[in-house]
Each structure stands twice: as structure tokens, then as C-alpha cells.
């Protein structure tokens, strides 16, 4: 139903412990943000994309489709950096330093978006969420978040079907009808959400629910060696960047 989510469940890296993927993509993300954009950002993007399109077999099409939204934001947002306002040259003027600044931000953000997306495309939330208790989040919160994740698809499915029904009766054929239809849809979803909660309450009581949604979380072996290996690429990227800086300074 959601492309990124569906891709994550089909990923060959699904059985890799989320912490390992977290260290791998998180480390690269930190490199992209904290190190000088040139050359860290292209290095990070290259490493992340090689890993993702190679061993993790992320579909390039799925990746491109998901990346489109954030990239659009990054590009439009960076347009403002090309001009300067209220300066001595007048109300709006081209900023000669703008393109360089914009390129730097686009490079950094694009590399960061790669890391985020590739983590999302290889890590299903059903595997990730129950493990969040391990990092100290309260169980009640984690259970609630996992419950929201499950109910989100049920609600989304309702939304799809109600909206299709409305469109069939021309509910989106002009702006005024659209506003009315979205309003009716929102109200219907609210009513159904509460109804669903009540029915689920009944359904779970039959299975022994008394307030805790305790489930058995599969053990995935978390080998320290794997974590270190996952950290290696970011260390290498950092080392390469630092040595490039020194060499650049030396030359």
C-alpha cells in the first residue's frame, strides 16, 4: 500500500539486525552532515548507493520514486539561495556566491536523503518498532507506536475505499465538491477510527488482553563483528575526507 514499506519487507537485508543497518546508514548520515560537504557528500552517496543497489538490491525505480519528494523540497528551497534581497544592488539581485552555497546544501542534503531512504527501504517497521524498548523507550509508548503502525494501514485502506466511492459519485469533479468530499472523508475516518478501536478492544479481550500488548519478538543475532563491519564504511569515508582535506591544505 505504501511503496517504501512494501519494498522494505521484500528487501534481502531484512534479516540483518536493524541496529547493524542503523549503524551503517546512520554513520554515513553523520559523515554527510558533520564533515565538509566536498568531498564527504559524494563519497557518502556513492558508498550508500553502491551498497543499496548492489548487495541490498534496492530497486532503482522504487528509490527514485521515493527520493523525488524530498529532492523537490531541497531544490525549491535552494532556489532562494541564488538571490539576495535588500542588499545594496537593489530589492532582488543575483548572488554571485549563491550557486556555490546552493550546490553545497543540495549535495549535503541529497547524500543525507540517500542514507535515510536506503535505511527505510531495507528496514521494515514491524522489525524495528518492537526493538525500540531496548534503547530505553517506555514499553507503553513502543506498544502504542506499533499499534498506530498497524492501524494506519487499516485506516488508510478505508480512506482509499471511501475516496474511490466518492470519486465514483463525482465527489472530486470540482473544487467545492472536493472540499465537501474531503471533509466528509475526514469525519467518516474519525468515526471509523473510534469504532475500530472499540471493536479491536473486544477482539483482543478474547485473546486475553488486559492492557499490555506483549508479543514475542524474534531474536536476531546481533554480533559485535557485524556492528563493527557496519561502522567501517563511515570510518573509511571520514578518513578519506580528512586526508583529502589535509592533502588539499598541503598542496
Amino acid at each position, binding site marked *: 500500500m505504501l511503496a517504501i514499506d512494501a519494498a522494505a519487507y521484500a528487501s534481502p537485508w531484512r534479516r540483518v539486525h536493524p541496529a547493524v543497518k542503523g549503524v551503517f546508514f546512520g554513520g554515513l548520515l553523520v559523515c554527510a552532515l558533520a564533515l565538509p560537504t566536498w568531498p564527504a557528500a559524494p563519497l557518502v552517496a556513492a558508498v550508500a548507493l553502491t551498497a543499496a543497489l548492489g548487495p541490498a538490491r534496492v530497486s532503482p525505480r522504487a528509490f527514485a520514486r521515493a527520493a523525488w519528494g524530498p529532492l523537490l523540497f531541497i531544490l525549491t528551497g535552494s532556489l532562494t539561495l541564488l538571490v539576495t534581497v535588500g542588499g545594496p544592488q537593489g530589492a532582488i539581485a543575483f548572488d554571485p556566491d549563491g550557486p556555490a552555497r546552493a550546490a553545497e546544501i543540495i549535495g549535503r542534503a541529497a547524500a543525507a536523503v540517500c542514507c535515510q531512504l536506503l535505511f527505510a527501504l531495507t528496514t521494515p517497521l514491524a522489525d524495528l518498532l518492537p526493538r525500540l524498548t531496548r534503547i530505553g523507550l517506555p514499553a507503553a509508548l513502543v506498544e502504542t507506536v506499533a499499534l498506530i503502525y498497524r492501524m494506519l494501514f487499516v485506516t488508510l485502506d478505508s480512506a482509499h475505499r471511501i475516496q474511490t466511492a466518492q470519486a465514483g459519485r463525482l465527489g472530486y469533479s470540482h*473544487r467545492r465538491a472536493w472540499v465537501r468530499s474531503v471533509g466528509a472523508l475526514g469525519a467518516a475516518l474519525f468515526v471509523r477510527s473510534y469504532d475500530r478501536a472499540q471493536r479491536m478492544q473486544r477482539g483482543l479481550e478474547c485473546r486475553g488482553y488486559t492492557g499490555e500488548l506483549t508479543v514475542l519478538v524474534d531474536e536476531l543475532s546481533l554480533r559485535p563483528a557485524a556492528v563493527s563491519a557496519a561502522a567501517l564504511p563511515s570510518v573509511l569515508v571520514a578518513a578519506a575526507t580528512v586526508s583529502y582535506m589535509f592533502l588539499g591544505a598541503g598542496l
Partner: protein
Amino acid sequence: MSGKPNAPTAADAAVGKATGGGSDAAPGKAGGGRRPVSQETGHGVTTVHEVLEVGSPDMHIAEGYLPWQHAAAWTAVAAPFVAHGVRSLTQAVRADPDAKLLVGAAGAFCFVLSALKIPSVSGSCSHPTGAGLGAVLFRPPVMAALGSITLLFQALLLAHGGLTSLGANVFSMAVVGPWVAYGAYKLVRSATASLDEQTSLGGAVFCAAALGSLATYTVTSVQLALAFPDPASGFFGSFAKFAGIFSVTQIPLAIIEGLITVVIVRLLSRVNPDQLRRLGVLRRNSAAPAAGQATDASEEKAG
């Protein structure tokens, strides 16, 4: 992008009535109202009106767009609000185990609400922030928690917004938006206390949703302006630029979100007045006229 593409006016507030079996709401009369407002999106399931337009432009600050110092600072700013919200949420859940499923349903509702498409200017679509409706229904502290969870899911499932920029997005969309909306709601509600319930509620909800939406995007512009000050005119020049690009296109959107929220709350006050009373949205003593009608009908059926 035409100058004023049939920007909805106050007259359009009549859409609430239009569902009521229809006095004057012949849509054809609404000037340019028939102008196409959707795009035939070529991707995804090939329906015209998919709930989710995957990859649509959105106002969430993307991963890595803010310098890391800014991202960290906004996370620190948002953290107390979220912590407070999470604490009140977990307390509610611990006090009443039944509340867990309701919170789950409310969270799912918030996510789906913010994924609905609404008509925007220039024939494209956008999404409502949901800050206004959420704040009115669930109160700002709870919205801080539910909004943060929604934003986390948006980042991971839709690539709307990032993980390091989560703090910044939470601050604008789950903290400032709901609080402004709630303030506006309370203000208008008390200012119009003498009017009849439906008018007062409608006005308050409209202001809450529209101002909440505007506030959200204004804060986003502030966040971007602080991160990227204009070389010549500093923060203010930069704010003007970002507001020009983002916030101004959001004004029609804010109005539309206001109208939609009015439709939602009006329908709810007819279909589910008890729920709204429980949530403190409808006044306990004054039943909405239509709600009274519904109750009559149910008594009729039971009798």
C-alpha cells in the same frame, strides 16, 4: 499559475450547509468552480484521486537540509514539548488500559488525515497539516506526541521530512501549529459564546485550522531563514524569501484546510455528538440542532 485561481471566499463556507440536502449549493454556479483542480497523476495506482500522492511536494524539511547544529538545536527545543506529550499519553494509557487502542486509532487517524490530498493553487495538490483538527479534538499536549509519531512515520514510510530534521518539523507541525490553533479556537469560542453553538463552533474551528496551518509554515520559514540568512539582509531578508516561496502559497491552502475542518467538525457534531462532548468540543448542555434531530430519530427507531 493564474492570479487568483478561484480562491475560496467566505461564501464557500456554505459548503458545510451544502451537505445538508442542499439549498443553494449548485456547484456549477460557483464561478470558476469547475476548473480542474486535480492532476491525472501518472504514477501509483492509476486512479485520479489517490488518497496519497506519493512524492508530492511537501513542506517537511528534508533530511540533511538543515546544518547539523540547527537540527540539534531544534530537536532540543522540541524535546520538552514531546516529552510532556508522551508523558501525558503514557499516563493516560497506564491509568486506563482501554485508552491504548483509542490512542492507536487517534494516531492512525492523524497520519491518514495528513496524507489526504486537498486542492491547492495552480491545479496541484497538497496535504492538510491536521494541526487544527488534532488540537481541537485531542488538545495540544497529546498532539505533540501524536504529531511526532505521525512525522516519524511520514519520514520512514513516505520520505516526507527527515530523521535529523525531525526535531525541527516536530516543533513547527506538532508544537507551534497545534498551540496556535488551540489558542485561536479558545479565543474565538469565548468571543462567540453568545452566538448559537454551530456558528460559534464553525468559526472557531475555521480560525483554528487556518491559523494553525499558517503558523506551521511560518515557523518552517523562520527555521530555514535562521539556517540560511541572506548575505545582504540577514535573517529578515531570508525570511522574506522563504515565506515568499512557501508561506504565501500556503494562504489559500490554509483557507481550504479551514473549510475542510469545518465540514469535518459539523458532520461529527451530527453523527457523533456524544464523542465530541466527551472530548470537550461540544458544550455539554447545548446539543447541536442536528444532533438533537439524530437523537430523536434514534429514539424513534428504538421505540
